[in-house]
C-alpha cells in the first residue's frame, strides 16, 4: 500500500476489547501519513498487546481500516494428575509463560507449557511423565484449557559407583551423599530418587571429603548418568583422580592486614606441617573476614592462594588479605513492622547510623531483636548505597507474630485439673514494647487475679520498670500437698537495670498479706502446732528481692545457643511477721553438639531460712509448746517433682511429708502422704534437643528432647515421722532421678508440654507418673 494521509481510523472485529484500548496502543493517529513502514510498526504494536490472533490493515479511500481477530479469553485452566508439583506452583509457572485465567489464549504458549512441565518433571527424575494439553472452545470467544499430567514413577537410582577411590572405601565417601541406591529406608527418605541438584551437591561433598583430608589436587574427572530403556532405573558413575596427600609447608599473610600479623596468625586454623585441609583453610578465611568485618571492613575478602609443589607433595598457602575500604552505615531502615513502633526496634540496634559498620554489632542486634519474642523472623542485610563505594544501608526485615495471647478457655493439667482462665497478655502492647497482662484464673486448687505491667525502656539505657498486683487463693491439698488454705494479696514494683550487654540486675520491693486456714481433720498436726506457737494466722511481709542474671541465650522461645545464670536473694524486712530469706541460684547452658543436635544442661539450688527466729507465744508447759519454730514458713517451702521440675514424679510430691494418722493410713502408702516441701531444693537435668520431624528446621515453635532429671527437697523442721526425718538434711542417695522424652509446642492458645518419663531412681512410696501434660496456662 502506498502512503496516504489518514482521514479517519475504523476498527473491525472487536468484541471483548474496547476501541479506546486499541487506539492507545496504535502508534498512528488521524492526520498522520501512513507509510508502509509505519503500517508494519502498527501491526507489530497491536500484536505485542497479546490481545489479537490476527491484525490486518486495509484502506477504504482515506480511511484506515484495522481488522482484528481477537484471541479467545481463557475462562478456566484445569490441571489434572499433578501430585509432585502443587497446583499453585504450576499456575504460577503458567502465568510466567503468559497462560492464565482472564488472559488471551495463544496456541503457541500451549506447546511451550507442555515442554516446561515435562522439563520440570524430568528435573525431579520422572522420566516417564506424559503431559497432554488440550483446549475446549466455548461460546462468546472463550476457551477452557485442560492439562492432563500422568506423572508415572520417578526413576530410582539402582547403581551409584565411584571409580578410582583407592584410599577410602565406597562406604566412607558415599556416607553423607544425598542420593543413594534403593534401600529399605528409601520409601521414606526418597534418597534413591534421582535429581540433578542432588547429584551435583553430592559431587561437591565428595570433593570436600577428599580436600579436607589433604588431597589438594583431587579432581572429579568425569561423571556419567545413564538410564535404562524403560526409563525407570538410573545408573550414576563418577570417575575421580585422588592425587596425593599434601602437607602445608609454609603460610604467608600478605596484603593490607589492618590487624597485627600475630593476631591474624592466631586466628588461622591450619598450621604449617599439618596435612592440607580445605575445610580448615575456609574456616581460617572465615575467621579473618569476620574479624575484619567486625571492625568496619564489611567487604573484606581473603584469597587463600595455594602453590602446589607436586614432587615434594607440599603446598604453600598465601592468605592475601584485601580489606577494601572502611565502610560506614548511612541509614538503618526497618521493614515489615506494621504493628511494632520504629523506636522499639531501633533502641535494640547496637549499630548506629553514621558510625562505621560492625558485623559484631549487627549480629548482636539481630539476637536482641529475636529475644524480644515479637517476631517470627528477623533478617538483616546490608545493601550498598548507590553512588558510593564505602557506604551501606542496614535493612532489617521483620515478620511480626502476634506476641499477645487472648487466653480464654479451658486448660487441663494434672496438678490443677480443669483450669478455666480468662486473660489478655499483650507482650507488645499496641507496638510500644510494653508488656501488659490482665488475668483471671480459676481451677480446682488455685484462684488468681493478676494485673501486671512492664515498661522495658523507662530510660534510654534500658532500665525497665514493672508493677504487679495479684490476689491468689490456694487450696494446697488439691495440689498434692498437706491440706491448708492460703489467700494472698501482693503488690510489687521492680526495676530491671542492665549492667552490661548481657547482665541485668533486678531490684524488687513489695508488700504481701497471706492468710492461712487449717482444717482440723485434714491439716497435719505439725502445721497446726506451728501456727498456734507462732500465734498468727495472717502473715504480713514487706520484702526486698535482689537478683543478678547473665543471659546470652539467642532466642526468647526455645533457645538453641547461649547460657543463662541467675542468682537471687529474697529478704522479708524486719517488721514482717516472719523474717526469712530465700536464696535461689539457677544455671542453664545450651551447647551445639552437631548441626541438628543441641545439648541443654541446667541445674538449680534453692535454700531458705529465718534470719531472726520467732519466739513461741505459748507457755513452755503448754502441751503443744514447740521451742524451735524457726525456718521457712511452710507455705513458702520449695517443692520438687512435676511437669516442669523433676519429670516423672507427681507435682510437688517429692521430699518431706506428713501423715494424718499413721495407724489407719501408713506412710508407706503413697496416697496417705501429705507432702510438706522443704527449705533446701536441688534440681539438675541434662537434655538432648532433637530436630522435630515434619517441622521447618530451626523454627522456635516446637522442641523435642530426651532428658535425664535429678532432684529433691530436704530440711523441713515440721517433720515428725521417721520416714520424713530421712530428709533431715542433704543426702545424695535420697535424690530421685528419671529419664524420658519431652515435647513442648508454643500453640496459639499457649504453651503445651507433654512428657513421657520413667523414674530410674525411686524409693518405695514415691508417687510416679509416666505421662504428664499441661496446656493452655502460662503460669
Amino acid at each position: 500500500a502506498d502512503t496516504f494521509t489518514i482521514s479517519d481510523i475504523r476498527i473491525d472485529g472487536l468484541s471483548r476489547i474496547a476501541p479506546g484500548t486499541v487506539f492507545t496502543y496504535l502508534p498512528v493517529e488521524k492526520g498522520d501519513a501512513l507509510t508502509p513502514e509505519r503500517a508494519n510498526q502498527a501491526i507489530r504494536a497491536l500484536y505485542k498487546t497479546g490481545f489479537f490472533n490476527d491484525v490486518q490493515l486495509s484502506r477504504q479511500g482515506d480511511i484506515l481500516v484495522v481488522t482484528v481477530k481477537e484471541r479467545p479469553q481463557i475462562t478456566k485452566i484445569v490441571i489434572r494428575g499433578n501430585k509432585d508439583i502443587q497446583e499453585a506452583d504450576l499456575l504460577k509457572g503458567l502465568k510466567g509463560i503468559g497462560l492464565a485465567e482472564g488472559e488471551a489464549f495463544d496456541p503457541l504458549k500451549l506447546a511451550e507449557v507442555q515442554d516446561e512441565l515435562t522439563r520440570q518433571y524430568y528435573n525431579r527424575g520422572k522420566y516417564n511423565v506424559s503431559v497432554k494439553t488440550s483446549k475446549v472452545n466455548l461460546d462468546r470467544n472463550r476457551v477452557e484449557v485442560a492439562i492432563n499430567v500422568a506423572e508415572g514413577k520417578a526413576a530410582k537410582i539402582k547403581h551409584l559407583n565411584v571409580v578410582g577411590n583407592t584410599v577410602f572405601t565406597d562406604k566412607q565417601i558415599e556416607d553423607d551423599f544425598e542420593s543413594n541406591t534403593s534401600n529399605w529406608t528409601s520409601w521414606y527418605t526418597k534418597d534413591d530418587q534421582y535429581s540433578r541438584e542432588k547429584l551435583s551437591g553430592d559431587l561437591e561433598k565428595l570433593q570436600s571429603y577428599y580436600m579436607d583430608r589433604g588431597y589438594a589436587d583431587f579432581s572429579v574427572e568425569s561423571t556419567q548418568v545413564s538410564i535404562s530403556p524403560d526409563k525407570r532405573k538410573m545408573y550414576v558413575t563418577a570417575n575421580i583422580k585422588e592425587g596425593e596427600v599434601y602437607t602445608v609447608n609454609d603460610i604467608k599473610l600478605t596484603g593490607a592486614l589492618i590487624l597485627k600479623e600475630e593476631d591474624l596468625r592466631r586466628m588461622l586454623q591450619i598450621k604449617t606441617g599439618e596435612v592440607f585441609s580445605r575445610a580448615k583453610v575456609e574456616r581460617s578465611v572465615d575467621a579473618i573476614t569476620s574479624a575484619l568485618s567486625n571492625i568496619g571492613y564489611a567487604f573484606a575478602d581473603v584469597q587463600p592462594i595455594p602453590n602446589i609443589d607436586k614432587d615434594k607433595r607440599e603446598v604453600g598457602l598465601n592468605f592475601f588479605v584485601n580489606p577494601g575500604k572502611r565502610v560506614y552505615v548511612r541509614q538503618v531502615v526497618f521493614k515489615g513492622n506494621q504493628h511494632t513502633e520504629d523506636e522499639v526496634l531501633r533502641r535494640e540496634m547496637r549499630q548506629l547510623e553514621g558510625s562505621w559498620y560492625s558485623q559484631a554489632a549487627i549480629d548482636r542486634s539481630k539476637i536482641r531483636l529475636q529475644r524480644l519474642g515479637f517476631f517470627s523472623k528477623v533478617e538483616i542485610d546490608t545493601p550498598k548505597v548507590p553512588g558510593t563505594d564505602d557506604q551501606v544501608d542496614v535493612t532489617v526485615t521483620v515478620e511480626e507474630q502476634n506476641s499477645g495471647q487472648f487466653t480464654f478457655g479451658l486448660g487441663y493439667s494434672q496438678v490443677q485439673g480443669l483450669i478455666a482462665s480468662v486473660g489478655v497478655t499483650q507482650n507488645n502492647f499496641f507496638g510500644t514494647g510494653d508488656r501488659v497482662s490482665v488475668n483471671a484464673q480459676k481451677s480446682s486448687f488455685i484462684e488468681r487475679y493478676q494485673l501486671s505491667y512492664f515498661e522495658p525502656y523507662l530510660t534510654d539505657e534500658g532500665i525497665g520498670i514493672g508493677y504487679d498486683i495479684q490476689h491468689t487463693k490456694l487450696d494446697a491439698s488439691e495440689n498434692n500437698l498437706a491440706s491448708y488454705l492460703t489467700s494472698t494479696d501482693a503488690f510489687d514494683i521492680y526495676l530491671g537495670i542492665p549492667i552490661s550487654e548481657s547482665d541485668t540486675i533486678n531490684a524488687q520491693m513489695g508488700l504481701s498479706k497471706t492468710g492461712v486456714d487449717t482444717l482440723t481433720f485434714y491439716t497435719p498436726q505439725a502445721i497446726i502446732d506451728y501456727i498456734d506457737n507462732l500465734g498468727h494466722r495472717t502473715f504480713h511481709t514487706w520484702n526486698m528481692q535482689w537478683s543478678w542474671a547473665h543471659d546470652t541465650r539467642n532466642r526468647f522461645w526455645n533457645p538453641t545457643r547461649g547460657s543463662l545464670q541467675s542468682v537471687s536473694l529474697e529478704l522479708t524486712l524486719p517488721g514482717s511477721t516472719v523474717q526469712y530469706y530465700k536464696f535461689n541460684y539457677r544455671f542453664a547452658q545450651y551447647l551445639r553438639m552437631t548441626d541438628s543436635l543441641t545439648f541443654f544442661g541446667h541445674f538449680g539450688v534453692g535454700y531458705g531460712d529465718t534470719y531472726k527466729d520467732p519466739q513461741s507465744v505459748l507457755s513452755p508447759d503448754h502441751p503443744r509448746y514447740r521451742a524451735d519454730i524457726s525456718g521457712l514458713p511452710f507455705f513458702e517451702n520449695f517443692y520438687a517433682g512435676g511437669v516442669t521440675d523433676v519429670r516423672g514424679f507427681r507435682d510437688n510430691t517429692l521430699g518431706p511429708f506428713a501423715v494424718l494418722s499413721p495407724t489407719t493410713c501408713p506412710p508407706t502408702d503413697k496416697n496417705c502422704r501429705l507432702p510438706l516441701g522443704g527449705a533446701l531444693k536441688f534440681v539438675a537435668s541434662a537434655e538432648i534437643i532433637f530436630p522435630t520431624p515434619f517441622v521447618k528446621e530451626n523454627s522456635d515453635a516446637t522442641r523435642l528432647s530426651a532428658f535425664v532429671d535429678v532432684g529433691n527437697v530436704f530440711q523441713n523442721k515440721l517433720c515428725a515421722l521417721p520416714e520424713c526425718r530421712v530428709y533431715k538434711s542433704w543426702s545424695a542417695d535420697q535424690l530421685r532421678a528419671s529419664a524420658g522424652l519431652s515435647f513442648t509446642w508454643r500453640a496459639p492458645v499457649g504453651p503445651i508440654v507433654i512428657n513421657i518419663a520413667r523414674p530410674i531412681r525411686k524409693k518405695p512410696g514415691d508417687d510416679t507418673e509416666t505421662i504428664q501434660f499441661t496446656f493452655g496456662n502460662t503460669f
Partner: protein
Amino acid sequence: CSLFHRGKKGDPMDTLPVEQLYQQGNEALQSGNNDYAVRVFQRLIARFPFGPYTEQSQLNLAYAQYKSDKPDDAYSTVNRFIKTYPTHRHIDYAYYLRGLINFNRSGGFMERYVGLDMTQRDQANLRQSFDDFGALVTRYPQSRYAADGRQRMIHLRNMMAQADLNVALFYLKRGAYVASSNRAKSILETYPQTPQAGDALAIMVKSYHELGQDKLADDAKRVLELNYPDHPSLKGRWPSYRSNWWKLIPLQNRG
C-alpha cells in the same frame, strides 16, 4: 434470592441475565453487604467477560473488595482494570481508588479503631499510596478526584517526613549527632516544603553545635530564622523531652 448464597447447583447467580445480576451487585454494595457484592460481581465477570456491564462491574468489584477489607485483592483487581480499560470514562476514579487502598491499609481491627500513629510504622504502604495518587494527579489533572488526591499526597508527604523526623529525634536524644544531622539533611532534601522541615533545621543546628561545628550551626540557624522565624527552638529549650518521671505512670506513652 435464594437463602444460600453460595454457588450451589441451580444457584440463581448462574442463570440470572446480566442486568439483574448487575442490579443485585449494586444493591448489595449500597446496603453495605460487601462480601456478597464481591461474589456477585465475580460471577458476572466470569459469565459475561465483555460488554458495558462487565467494565463497570470490574470497578465495582474493586470497590467492594476494598470496602470488605481485602486490600490485596482490591489492588490487583483495580490494576487489572487499568490495564484492560485504559480509556474507560471512569479511569480517573480507578487511579483514585488505587491510591485509597494503600492510604487506609493499616494493621488489624484494633489498630483502625484505636487510631495508631502510622508515622511510627513501616512506610511501604504510604509510599505506594503516594506514588499511586501521583499517577492520578499527573495523568488526569482536571479529574474531580485530582484535588482530593493532591490533598492526600501532601498529608502522606508530611507523614513520611514525620517518620524520618522521629528517627532524627531518636538519635539526637541518644547523642548520635552525625546520625541526627544526616537524617535531618535527608528530610530537607526529600521533603522540602513540609512543616517538619523546620524541626529538621532545628535538629541540624543542635547537632552541629554539639559536634563543635559552630560555623555550620550558624549557617543552619540563619536559614531557620529566615524560613521558620517562630520555631520553638529559637526561643526556649527544644525539643522538650518529657521527663522520665512521666513514664513511671503506666500506659501513658501509647504510640
